[in-house]
């Protein structure tokens, strides 16, 4: 498949994985999606199978929620333990494992942030290194905010000083929330760039560099996003 000058596309990968598996029950080769062609027994979803492939989706970041839901319902009907009550213990165990995996996959893909984190994990390994220092462009602002927060915590809440601090914190909060929205927009843009790159399917050096750039930018934003989110949560809890 590499001979076509393409990066592995998700569907190619799926064919590879599926073709390799064998029915646990009748030992014939399984080429269908999740059921043996010959004995129609449900097959365990491979641990190697990524969530995108499981849903039959390409590894893209823009996903139509309606389509995702429809596929989730379809697979739920195929796997749910409710429909395996009269089947063998082996099939019941597979149904339970597949359902649990399907539910995790759906939860991950449904949420854009989790989806992006998951894709990063797949494409570039370990993700969630949560930032412990403020992002560079917010450094000054956050240091100052922490000071104000400390002052506010130490203050007598009924004093006019506390009221002034609270007002300042409120405006800080508005700034950070705006920042969160900006990051949201940036993530959306990166989603678009990633999907476009994948759609082009080039394997040139330039494309490789572009790919690395997008993944890195995404990683930075996701980690900053978590950091800012924690700060905002802390702020909201303090002034509540």
């Amino acid at each position, binding site marked *: 498949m590499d001979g076509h000058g393409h990066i592995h596309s998700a569907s190619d990968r799926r064919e590879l994985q599926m073709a390799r598996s064998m029915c646990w029950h009748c030992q014939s080769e399984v080429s269908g999606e999740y059921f043996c062609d010959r004995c129609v027994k449900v097959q365990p979803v491979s641990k190697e199978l990524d969530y995108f492939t499981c849903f039959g989706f390409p590894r893209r970041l823009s996903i139509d929620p309606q389509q995702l839901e429809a596929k989730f319902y379809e697979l739920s009907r195929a796997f749910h*333990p*409710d429909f395996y009550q009269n089947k063998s213990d082996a099939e019941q165990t597979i149904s339970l*494992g597949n359902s649990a995996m399907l*539910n995790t996959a759906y939860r991950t893909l449904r949420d854009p942030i989790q989806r992006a984190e998951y894709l990063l994990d797949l494409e570039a390994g370990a993700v969630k290194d949560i930032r412990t220092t403020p992002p560079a462009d917010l450094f000054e602002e956050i240091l100052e905010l922490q000071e104000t927060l400390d002052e506010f915590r130490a203050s007598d809440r009924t004093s006019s000083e506390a009221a002034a601090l609270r007002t300042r914190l409120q405006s800080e909060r508005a700034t950070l929330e705006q920042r969160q929205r900006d990051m949201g927009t940036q993530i959306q843009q990166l989603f678009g760039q990633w999907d476009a790159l994948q759609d082009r399917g080039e394997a040139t050096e330039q494309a490789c560099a572009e790919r690395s750039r997008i993944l890195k930018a995404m990683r930075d934003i996701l980690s900053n996003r978590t950091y800012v989110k924690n700060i905002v949560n802390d702020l909201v809890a303090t002034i509540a």
Partner: protein
Amino acid sequence: MSRIVGIDLGTTNSLVAYMDQGTPRVIAGRHERAMVPSVVALTDNGLIVGDPAKEHLTRNPERTVYSVKRFMGKGLADVQHELAYFPYTLTEKGGVIRIKLGEKTYSPPQISAMILKELKLRAEAFLGESITKAVITVPAYFNDSQRQATKDAGMIAGLEVLRIINEPTAASLAYGLQQRTQGTIAVYDLGGGTFDISILKLKNGIFEVLATNGDTHLGGDDFDQLIADIFLADIRQQHGLDLTAYPDHMQGIRLEAERAKVRLSEALATTATLDLPEGKGRFIRELTREQLESLCHALVERTLGPCRLALKDAGLTPSDIDEVVLVGGSTRMPLVRQRVQALFGKQPHCELNPDEVVALGAAVQADILSGGTTDMLLLDVTPLSLGIETMGGVMSSLIRRNTTIPASAKEMFTTYVDGQTGVDIHILQGERELAKDNRSLARFRLKVPPLPAGVPRIEVTFLIDANGILNVKATDMRTGQSQSIDVKPSYGLSDQEVERMIEDSFKFASDDVSARKLIEARLDASALIVTTEKSLADGGHLISAEGIAAVRTALTALASAKDGTEPPAIRARMADLEQAAKGLTVAMLDDSLKRSLQGKKVSEIT
């Protein structure tokens, strides 16, 4: 596949339902009553369940167990503050509450099993076949221990519990099937002892629960208690009498409070009456709906918090909800309806009988499991976050609340010391930061081969199955060997204990059935004797002397049959008496009709 029934094992009442050619139906017992009071009494003739047991609440309060559902999956410390309200004696053994009845003690699952057996017998009598499989409902907000205890109860009753399903979702299945509902719905379920709110999305036969919340200690019982408390205070003030010293009267007051509450769902005012002990005469009190509502206001408000939380977790606002469904007897209260309507901004649905809808839904789920219904599928969630205790006594969450089940999470464990052979794992359920503030579910020790620190790699899989019950599995990643884990539940019966209880229940099962039939026949006979004698006293003058003599003869025959041990003989004499007293009954009816018409003008009658 043999038939699977659906059972609503409620705090105050329980029901059994089955699927009759695509339509779920509840199974009624004698007198066409579908509800079996969840009451078990120890009498001189043995244990009795349901309506006859309910009569013992006031006669024999120390030996009559009600609201046992409140104790399922709990330790004594959990219910410490309400012990005073219960006339029977509670103790604890192995982290599980035990209820003392005569010389023996019973765990809550054993008491619940007696109720389940009653329902099982009822279903068997009605369907004419042996019933061994059931779907049993629990409050959505029940934790793992409470679910496990319910499953244990089923096993002790001789039922294979194929599925534990949540009450509000069961209700949604019944509504979905019968009303063909689509869209986003909120099910508000306020029962005798528990409150649940579930938000679901119904689409093309899929019932997807988006979020659930609740309070497993809030229900109609609590309203009754508030009313009973004001009666108690009044009696103390007016008669200088402290009724708490009279357990039988305490039960009488509780039941009268309940009846007054029920009447106030229709009427704007009602009168409660109670006979007092020590020749103090009668207590009579007027209660208005307004008074009831101001009394219960705070409790009803307490249900709204969980509603808002469930909406938030589902990422919805009240205006996103297309329909609101009311479930549970307590939703008959106008105040509850008003508050729910105000919160969601729409008129709630109550087309289906709120007492029966949960059992009907359980029957639908039973039909899905047996392969009868194939177009409907329920995707439920786990109500509480599941996690483990980590360093510093903090809870580390593994499966978040409102995660669709089945759900699984994997965690890798290793050692901190060379040659360490075990890792202790403490499983928790709840939403709080600290381990100690959450519910302890179980502890187990992971066996590790003695190796240098950090080398062992044991992967533990936590899997919540479709019943919402946790299963734990461990695999040594170096050898690929899986390890069996002996999980010790913090608030549950051990497997051995359940085994023993099942054996006990089988051993006594045949005795139980015949004893039960005899007890019931005797109770019915006594009731018939009492009513017939009253009729004779009130209306004897309306019939001939021969008629009276015939009734007397039949009465004597029944009285002597009642002392025998043959239920069919007792039933036969009862039929004789009913036949002999027919003339009397008819004469009395005619007479009362005549008198009610007397002194009225013809225009008033027609």
